[in-house]
């Protein structure tokens, strides 16, 4: 069976869904963040596959930017999570509801 861009798209969709589900069901902030990274990577796969399909490199360029931004995001995000952890001594997302209603 030939692996076509369509297959990658399906893979990407699956990965994205896994990421989304991860975000929704996990309790640990770090893991949720990882799930978000999964979503971003699903996007990357999609972009690369489409780049292949439409025969230009824009998609791949986009991927580079997404990766870079994801890295920056990780840096900022982990910093924020760290600050949170320092105050609350927890990274459990259920305990993060001081502000509501």
């Amino acid at each position, binding site marked *: 069976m030939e692996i076509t861009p369509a297959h990658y798209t399906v893979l990407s969709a699956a990965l994205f869904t896994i990421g989304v589900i991860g975000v929704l069901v996990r309790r640990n902030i770090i893991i949720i963040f990882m799930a*978000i990274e999964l979503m971003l990577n699903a996007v990357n796969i*999609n972009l690369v596959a489409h780049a292949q*399909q439409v025969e230009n490199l*824009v998609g791949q360029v*986009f991927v580079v930017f997404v990766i870079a931004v994801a890295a*920056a995001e990780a840096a900022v*995000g982990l910093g924020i*999570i760290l600050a949170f952890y320092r105050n609350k001594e927890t990274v459990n997302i259920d305990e993060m509801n001081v502000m509501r209603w």
Partner: protein
Amino acid sequence: MPAGFSTLDFYFILPELVLTGGALLLLLLSVTVPKQDGVLLGVTLVTIATTLVAVSAFAGLDETVSRGLLAIDGFAAFFKVLALLSAALTVLMSAPYLRVEGLKAGEYYFLILCATLGMMFMASGLDLITLFIGLETMALSFYVLVGYLKPNPRSNEAAVKYFLLGAFSLGILLYGMSLLYGATGTTSLAGISAALSGQETSAVLVLAVILVGAGMGFKIAAVPFHMWAPDVYEGAPTPVTAFLSVGSKAASFAMLLRIFVEGLPALAEEWKTLFWGLAVVTMTVGNIAALTQSNLKRMLAYSSIAHAGYLLIGVVVGTERGVASMLVYLGVYLFMQLGVFGIVTAMRRGDIIGDELKDLTGLFKRSPVVGFAMLCFMLSLGGIPPTAGFMGKMWLFGAAIDAGEIWLVVIAVLNSAVSAYYYLRVVVFMWINEDEPAGSPIAIGPTMAVALGVALLGTVVLGVYPQALFEYAQSAASTLDGITSSIALR
């Protein structure tokens, strides 16, 4: 499209360069010259002012530069001015706040300038990649700014929420963008527009529209993507909330308009329907939820959600008049929203957080001028003449009527009537409740005075004589590509 970059491209991004330079200088100064908050403030303001001058130097241009990545047009210029103005006012009202909270000023101003930089790119980006980069530049800065009160658990929590949900929505947005790229083979808005014209709408494209819409909806805090807003607004340092609710919202609307109006005119029917629904639920939920809030910042968050709903009317209309009216509204919104947050910021003094409604009790008695200013801002937010908010709303609703969106606008006016209730509640606390207020009187420092003065002036003057803004917005809107000049009545 020129084959490569040229020095000319750098010339056109001069304002952004100035801003970046200023930001870097600030960072440098904050390390080398400690305890010089005044200097830092000065540098920030000068940077913003210089950028503003640079931006206005390009006013009137309508150029596509950097191989089609950036537009130097009136539309971009308008949003850049908005971003810079809101940054400047935020900075002005931040100065005393930082002192009270004991926060480091250098990084703070730096982050503000970075966010502003992102906003400027969001305003002029013509390519999904540019827009994405601009968006992230802004968002990353805000993640940090929201959590800038490091010892404060609320601030922490707000930052985490904003960050996680922001990243989550970014994923959705990017997924939508990738679908768009897949369907058209390009990330350039003009290219997408060209590729889609005449093409049958496919399910994938609809999905892409929905995902991109959802991603942008998150940024502008449209229901049901708004859930972060109240929490984040409440937890973030007040000036940051102000900046977030004005600058970020305006820039996101700029990006939204770029993507949908310039990039996806072929799918106009789909996204107009989408935003129609979003507009209705956004303003309704925003207003109704705001009715019973007792925390001022939280109430303003819902009010800001509701305003996003009104602004979406302009998107739904999608005509030049619609866009122009949005720009007017955003311009007006800047003054009144920043003004309100300025006052809430000023309420933070000594041991008093000052963001509860009851903290406003007797405000008018304590300091009549602030009370009067707050009255003006509240009336303006409620859209009651002779304040700027009325002119903004009037013109926004007018555009919708012109486009035949009668039901949308009926819902909107009813909403705006409902909103008057909670804005007046603030007024009741300030003006009518006679109980003796607690705490020390409000001291308005010089920078805060300037910020509030500008906001008040803008709110009142634009309410009585909005001609300049109308004209400016009109000309800015007309430079947006792919805009239709008018839709026949009915």
